[in-house]
């Protein structure tokens, strides 16, 4: 029943968001909304590994860029079918190329998922810190590869000319915004499903005490690999439509540190133990950043995120969700009768005691 309401609610909210943006008639809302939703997906994806399993991934930008660059590569292939395919295959290729954005998202997800699996396989058998360092390294290795790969533009970058019109939506940015709404719902649903499944409990045992979990027969390595793959795939999916959004992609912007910082800071500030946390963090920080970027500068925007991260990590380790939980728990009366706060807690599915 709850699951039904979750889906109904998220679809309604998504539809309302789209309707509102369209009603306002302001294209900037679509651009800003796209960025914020992109961070919702990234933060949720990061949290599946970082929050549930306790393994820090500093390489979000790498997974994001892998998705984005797989789109660039396929776009180039699609635009020059005759040049890159032998004659016999060109006819078939022309039927499917150029690929539409949903297909590209799935391909981007597969590419990044495989990268996640590979990195995880190399490093997850070691202590946690090594995985974190390896993901930092991964971002630079991938960036070097892309910079030296002329087909996708190398360090010069690549122009992606997007179709001016799409059926139904008309305006292309509206189409991308709608896709991002769907992708956010998919990411949140995935996180929520994992949280309540055997998989999620397995992840939690790894986070709390990996040695004890291993001793109890939890297949920790397998679970960690599953987590890195899902997390990486979602990040790649967030990155796949990005070239169409930005129009011109170069390694510096695709691998920007802002992605890595935001996808860590947003869950940490929102709260890492449930799917609500990254959502809250991404909405708050994403909107605040958009505001600061417009009014002051983008450097100040990321500075604020960095400072908030430090403040929350030191002062409120359980994030905003944790603060709200503590507030509600404080409302419980000594004789056990529920107060309005704990009623609210039950309603919001944040039962006192539930992590």
């Amino acid at each position, binding site marked *: 029943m709850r699951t039904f309401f979750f889906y109904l609610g998220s679809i309604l909210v998504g539809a309302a968001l789209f309707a509102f943006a369209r009603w306002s008639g302001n294209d900037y809302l679509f651009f800003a909304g796209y960025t914020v939703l992109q961070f919702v997906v990234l933060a949720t994806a990061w949290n599946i590994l970082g929050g549930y399993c*306790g393994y820090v991934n500093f390489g979000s930008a790498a997974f994001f860029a892998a998705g984005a660059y797989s789109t660039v590569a396929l776009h180039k292939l699609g635009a020059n079918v005759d040049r890159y395919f032998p004659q016999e295959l060109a006819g078939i290729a022309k039927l499917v190329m150029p690929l539409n954005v949903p297909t590209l998202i799935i391909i981007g997800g597969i590419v990044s998922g495989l990268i996640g699996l590979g990195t995880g396989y190399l490093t997850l058998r070691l202590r946690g810190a090594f995985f974190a360092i390896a993901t930092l390294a991964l971002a630079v290795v991938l960036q070097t590869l892309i910079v030296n790969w002329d087909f996708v533009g190398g360090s010069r970058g690549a122009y992606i000319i997007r179709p001016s019109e799409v059926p139904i939506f008309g305006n292309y940015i509206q189409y991308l915004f709608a896709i991002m709404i769907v992708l956010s719902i998919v990411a949140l649903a995935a996180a929520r499903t994992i949280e309540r499944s055997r998989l999620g409990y397995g992840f939690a045992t790894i986070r709390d005490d990996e040695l004890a979990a291993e001793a109890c027969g939890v297949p920790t390595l397998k679970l960690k690999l599953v987590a890195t793959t899902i997390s990486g795939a979602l990040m790649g999916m967030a990155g796949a439509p990005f070239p169409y959004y930005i129009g011109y992609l170069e390694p510096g912007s695709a691998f920007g540190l802002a992605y890595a910082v935001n996808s860590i800071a947003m869950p940490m500030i929102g709260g890492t133990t449930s799917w609500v946390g990254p959502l809250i963090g991404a909405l708050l920080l994403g909107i605040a950043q958009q505001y600061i970027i417009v009014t002051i500068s983008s450097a100040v925007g990321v500075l604020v995120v960095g400072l908030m991260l430090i403040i929350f990590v030191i002062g409120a380790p359980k994030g905003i969700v944790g603060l709200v939980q503590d507030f509600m728990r404080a409302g419980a009366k000594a004789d056990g009768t529920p107060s309005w706060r704990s009623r609210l807690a039950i309603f919001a599915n944040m039962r006192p005691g539930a992590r």
Partner: protein
Amino acid sequence: MELLINAIIAGLLLGGFYAAVTVGVSISFGILDIVNIAHPAFIILGAYIAYIVNQTLGLDPILTAVIALPAFYALGAVVYQVYYQSFEKHGQDALRGLAFFFGLLFVTEVLLILVFGVDYRYVTASYIDQTLHFGFVDLPLRMLIPCAISLAMLAMLQLYLSRTFTGRAIMAVSQDQLALRLMAADPTKIKRIAFAISIATASLAGSFLIVIQPVEPSVGREYIGRVFAICVLGGLQSLPGTVIAAMLLGIVESITATFYGPSWAPAVAFGFLLLTLAFRPAGLLGR
């Protein structure tokens, strides 16, 4: 052949500099088990201090770094105190500690960008443009001097860690804190001293960096992977291992840059790191 020999020698000199960059992490990550990924940010900070003093007072950058050592030592002590109070004391240092240092790295970088912009900055000193020639071998002084001072610094640190009581206590703190307590040494205090020393080395490493190449705030990021690659390859807590690994990486990077072009050099370090982690996580001189 001459090209190869020159590349190897340039790599050795580069490796000496890398050793100075890494030694701080070898102490904090290798010995104290504090994953200080913000170390490169402190190095860049050191480079910018050398730059400011050089521009305003015309002082030699390396001399500036030596004068700034106590300040960096104090900074390190403060950072450790914050880290200890917020995370280590409660035993929650893994995930949140990492996020803390990541935030520190990031905030330092953005602050430097806001203050100095993203232009490359460089220092002037008499020896920077000079090169010694022995036959076909070139020894640029801007590489040779940092390398020599760096090796001297590492030798001194090695002596300190192996000969003095505090130094031995630092080596012991990673092994058995209770035993250390029984020797009447407070593990927290020892760790604070060690961490402060590790940050102090960043002052010198930063001045070497700006002598060797022009610096802008995000240069530090390139060094994260390098530093940890060297640290892991060197066997985490062994300073001689750090030097050997740094030289090795320097040579491989220099050869790659000479024969395949400098744009591939960053990937070498990280490929190194990934391979080390996959096949020999204990490092070259690991136990």
